[in-house]
């Protein structure tokens, strides 16, 4: 029994140590961080480094940008996915299957393949250095449409039959029956999208130069390079960048897990 706890604790220590020491170092001053042997716990609770990262490191501004961009992307992805999924699950129209395959095909072309041609498109559109550049390419997702469609299809067909016999319109069927019943899948999509959008790195790096448009992830890049004699500020900034997701992770763990495992083999 004790052995089991020791084993668990040892593994937990390895996993959490980098995050723990980041928090500790955010409370130390640069001289203390360089001290040998290293201090493994805070000597006092001085929030100065957090203040510096927030104001002079502009972390406040970057977090706001990340939040704006992420909220727009999540809201749009949920909307476009639910709409497309509804069409694929409940409506008949020519080329429905072909179009669905087109949606699936988008998953075979990850953004890492198209990033620089997309950057050229953004420049041509005159969107370089704008929120449009940061959001528009991600307003739809084949993965999301697929996930919600599967949820719609798993609803008992008696429901839709009853609705159509009833003469209830699509709007009523969608908003009163289909969408509420597919809520777990939609929530999984939303949380998954949030994490993916918030953590984006390559794209914001290449389509923005303006400091006022920086997202947190890109902000960290500059915090890393500019603060060699202020390591504590770098650590504090990192803690600030983790906090939003940490809160979300604790609150929405179930949804995130569902989103992450959605593609795994059934069963």
């Amino acid at each position: 029994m004790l052995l089991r706890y020791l084993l668990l604790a040892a593994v937990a220590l390895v996993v959490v140590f980098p995050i723990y020491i980041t928090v500790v170092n955010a409370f130390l001053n640069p001289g203390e961080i360089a001290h040998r042997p290293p201090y493994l716990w805070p000597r006092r609770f001085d929030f100065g480094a957090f203040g510096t990262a927030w104001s002079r490191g502009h972390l406040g501004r970057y977090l706001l940008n990340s939040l704006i961009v992420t909220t727009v992307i999540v809201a749009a992805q949920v909307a476009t996915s639910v709409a497309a999924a509804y069409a694929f699950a409940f409506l008949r129209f020519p080329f429905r299957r072909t179009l669905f395959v087109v949606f699936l095909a988008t998953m075979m072309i990850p953004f890492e393949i198209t990033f620089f041609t997309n950057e050229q498109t953004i420049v041509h559109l005159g969107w370089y250095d704008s929120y449009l550049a940061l959001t528009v390419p991600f307003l739809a997702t084949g993965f999301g449409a697929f996930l919600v469609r599967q949820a719609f299809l798993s609803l008992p067909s008696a429901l839709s039959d009853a609705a159509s016999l009833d003469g209830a319109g699509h709007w009523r069927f969608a908003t009163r029956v289909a969408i509420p019943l597919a809520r777990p899948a939609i929530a999984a999509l939303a949380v998954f999208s949030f994490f993916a959008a918030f953590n984006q790195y390559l794209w914001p790096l290449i389509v923005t130069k303006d400091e006022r448009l920086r997202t947190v992830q890109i902000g960290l890049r500059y915090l890393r390079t500019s603060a060699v004699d202020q390591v504590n500020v770098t650590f504090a900034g990192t803690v600030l960048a983790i906090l939003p997701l940490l809160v979300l992770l604790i609150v929405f763990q179930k949804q995130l897990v569902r989103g992450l495992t959605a593609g795994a083999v059934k069963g």
Partner: protein
Amino acid sequence: MSTTGASLAADAADTVTEQPPVRRRGRRGRARDALLGYALIAPALVVFGAFVFYPFARNLYLGMYRTPPFPGLPKRYAAFDQYERILRSPEFLGSIRTTVLFVLYTVPPGIFLGILMAVLAHQRLRGIAIFRTLFSSTLATSTAVASVIFFTLLNPQVGLLTHYLGRDGKPSLLQEPRWALIAVAAVTVWQNLGLSFILMSAGLGAVPDELLEAAEIDGAGFWRRFRHVVVPMLSPMIFFAAVVGSIQSFQAFGQIDLLTQGGPLRATNLLVYATYDAVFRQNNEGKAAVLSVALFVITLLLTLVQLKVLERRVTYER
């Protein structure tokens, strides 16, 4: 995190024969349904057209044109010569070799540690929920967060890991050609521990407890149980994680940009970073296009492998 296209496609193949959609009576009703259907998928289609299919086609096209050495000169049509020239270049082959090594350094260790953590957390013990939360905590980190943390911990002057590794006063591991790729891989593995743990826990949750217990009563030791019961039962999830993880590692970029910039001596010049470097530093979009197409082919092959195996279903009946 990346989407999980391959297996979704497999699922989709299963469900093409779906239940009948809502039917409206009469021709006018059907026409209106069709219009509504197009209207509902149109927004997504526009985005895909502009930011997935068009740039992809443009990649294929740019790959056939040689970028002039000086801006302003016309591009020269080179058909597939440029593909051949670049795909045979030592630089590309080196980058592929490095990327494959990176995949090997990240995927198997990540899966192994994920299983280990999942098995440990799969016990009925008081307070186990706390450990589960701790094990999944790296899910709250991003590539950038993990990279900045380890970049600073490996700092030659103030880095804590520098000290513990006995390298005080020596250059950062990230600047050692022998260690840089391994160090970057280790950071990547750490950042993905949470994900790996979650996936393997989900897989383990589907294994009937009697099976694990039966093995215990049989007196099988931990390692034997691990090898002969846990790993086979988890094989569908391991396979899924291996394919998704490989695709993700083939697409790694952020950790390279933040930790090593492809160096030292190109020791960490992964494929996507090489593409980025080609277009934004060398101004050679023709080359970048060829590298992108190569990455697409690799992703496609991995996906096809997954589909092929899924067809045969690696599941063990329960």
